[in-house]
């Protein structure tokens, strides 16, 4: 089923993983303790960590279970919207200033049912709970009727598109196109305080580190091996008596919750959440980060997300016209020459274009 030559050597992979994890930890320390960093760069580091976490969550389901979701923005947005509601409630509670959203939504005050979200633990539980519930219901229905492969990809894409259309409506009640902005304070501290940006960025990096390590442990264990087996030959695994539905559903829900956490960390750092995070393009881009970094290796997702977004940040203000070409070029390059992502470069033995039909993990069944 799998062509051995195209699997990276285990040792190399281990090294990369440890390196990436260490780099994340180091970055967390640098961000938290190094005083010379500008607030802007701290913020960028924090955002990159959120994107990396998002990519990591997709890698679990795509890289390990072979199920490509083109709708992961949905879970990211759930986390983001819940924390947005929390921050707005918190702003009202601490500063007493009515946020813009009340005015442009034509409300008198924030809706009553947002009230409990003023407490952070409630918001956290809500974000994780909602993303888990949505993932569970959708996953259960899909995996039970054996929707997979390309079908699953398009259906999730349609799902996130529907969510985007819904959230763009003002009447849906979450700020419509505007979304939520104007967050004032977090844990009682105003956002302008320099420590806030550092704290958020360092937290994001630490969460990323923890997630990397936890996922790694999970994936080299029994669960991870079963997942890979499901990916490579689900029928055989089922006939061996394993309940693959439960496996797939488990990793799918885990992935959704991770994505929600990424959204939770991301929104306070950018100060806005709007339905754009639900656009099919963003969800597709997440898959692109994974593909560029290399799937099924955790570290690859992190590298891909950080690399792509770092280039994007640096280009969008200086040479904005260039960015789409760079991105398209990278994807085509990866698709044709480095099927395992840019980590292939480390091996210096790329699958050259003259060898078209090499099976990749997860591609066995369209």
């Amino acid at each position, binding site marked *: 089923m799998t062509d051995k030559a195209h699997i990276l050597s285990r040792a190399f992979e281990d090294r990369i993983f440890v390196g990436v994890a260490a780099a994340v930890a180091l970055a967390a320390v640098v961000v938290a303790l190094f005083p010379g960093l500008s607030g802007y760069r701290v913020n960028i580091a924090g955002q990159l960590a959120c994107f990396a976490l998002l990519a990591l969550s997709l890698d679990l389901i795509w890289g390990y279970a072979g199920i490509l979701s083109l709708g992961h923005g949905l879970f990211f947005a759930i986390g983001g919207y819940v924390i947005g509601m929390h921050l707005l409630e918190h702003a009202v509670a601490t500063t007493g200033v009515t946020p*813009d959203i009340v005015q442009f939504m034509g409300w008198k005050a924030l809706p009553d049912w947002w009230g409990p979200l003023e407490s952070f633990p409630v918001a956290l539980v809500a974000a994780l709970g909602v993303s888990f519930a949505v993932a569970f219901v959708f996953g259960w229905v899909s995996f039970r009727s054996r929707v997979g492969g390309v079908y699953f990809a398009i259906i999730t894409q349609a799902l996130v598109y529907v969510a985007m259309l819904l959230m763009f409506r003002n009447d849906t009640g979450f700020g419509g*196109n505007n979304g939520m902005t104007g967050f004032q304070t977090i844990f009682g501290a105003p956002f302008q305080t320099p420590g806030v940006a550092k704290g958020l960025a360092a937290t994001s990096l630490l969460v990323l580190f923890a997630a990397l390590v936890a996922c790694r442990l999970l994936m080299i264990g029994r669960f991870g091996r079963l997942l890979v087996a499901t990916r490579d030959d689900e029928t055989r695994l089922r006939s061996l008596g394993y309940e693959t539905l439960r496996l797939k559903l488990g990793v799918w829900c885990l992935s959704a919750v991770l994505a929600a956490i990424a959204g939770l960390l991301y929104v306070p750092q950018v100060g806005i959440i709007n339905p754009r995070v639900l656009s099919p393009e963003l969800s597709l881009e997440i898959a692109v980060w994974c593909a560029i970094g290399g799937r099924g290796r955790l570290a690859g997702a992190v590298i891909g997300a950080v690399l792509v977004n770092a280039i994007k940040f640096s280009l969008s203000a200086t040479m*904005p016209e260039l960015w789409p070409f760079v991105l398209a070029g990278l994807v085509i390059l990866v698709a044709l020459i480095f099927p395992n992502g840019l980590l292939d470069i480390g091996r210096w033995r790329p699958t050259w274009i003259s060898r078209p039909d090499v099976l990749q993990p997860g591609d066995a069944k369209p």
Partner: protein
Amino acid sequence: MSKFDRRSFLMTTAGLAAGAALPLAAPPLIRSARAAGPVKLGCLFSSSGTMANLEGRMNFVAKMAADEINAAGGVNGSTIEVVTSDPASDWPLYAQIGRQMLAETKVAALFGCWTSVSRKSVLPVVEQNDGLLFYPLHFEGDENSKNVVYVNSPPASSVLPAVDYLMSPDGVEAKRFFMIGSDYVWPRTINKQLKGYWKSKGIEESAWKEEYVPFSFSNFQTIVNQIRAFADAPGGKCVVVLTVVGSSIPDFMREFANQGISSSDVPVLGLDMVEADLEGLDTAKMVGHLNCWAYLQQAKGDANVKFLKSWSDYVTKTGAPFKKDVAIDPMVSTYDAVHLWAMAAKKAGSFDVPEVRKAFDGLSFDCPSGYKIGMTAENNYVSRGVFIGSVNETQGFDVLWQSPDTPKPVPMSQY
């Protein structure tokens, strides 16, 4: 972790860690060409995505205005350098790039945003960094930040005069209104204010109807059917108040004309409709529909002749991918904005935001619209003239009505 010795482990780890940490500590990726020399102005206009066709041209206008000022010797001994970007019609990206420009590129002021959504997303950024954003579009009002200069008009001095005109005997004595808008804050707020205004005039609630469509919606067949049904119902003359934006405008107008509705049947007041939206349409069947802005290309006066000439020359010179014979209000507003900023900076003798802001009081500028536009100490609004335009056969607007002077802007709506 069998095949992997300690040395290679340490080396890889160190290498990767350094790789990750370096960019954090390294000098900024976006480096200014000459650190001390020019003063930088940042543009937040998309050149891709649904707003690209409208916003894209503003980057060039800002550069053109900067060139004019530089040719006259610059400001406070510095030349102006305009930094452009592409927020790709993605609202959060406006905030992101705005933050980057203020914190990293150290721009003295930002010029940008078309939709109110993008302005609302940049607002917290300019407020937190105490920057200045010059916003060149007419908008829904109800906002008054010390960090935003509202170069164009709030509804009280743009939309309401136009609606008044439609309701007057000189117009069509409109009694009933079909509001169709893109689903976001600007159309919703405008319509809310209009409804309040009509209520204050004693118009029944049954005399209006509102519909919202998503951004870049294009299939208006059913909605135009609804408009026809509404217009033919009893109760007096019906007009359409169109607040869809971007590419939806030409789509709507085309379907409207194709279903055989002319301006003498049901006039359309396109609040965001500009000359650029009519590009590519057969406007012979749309003659007479209205828009309202603080500038129309047919405005009279030397300032306009000069502006149109500079734009045409500029497009020829730089090969900008826009029509050289089309000028729209937001272009002029951006042009005004750059000049207003330069005048304020000159007056203040500084580029510091608080100083520049203090200097706004009493500024006045000969706008291409033919009016002398001005600012007061009261707020960051600019008083502009009001034009009502009427679509003509040549994809432009004729001036149907214009205000005698520049009404004082009212930031907060009473409706």
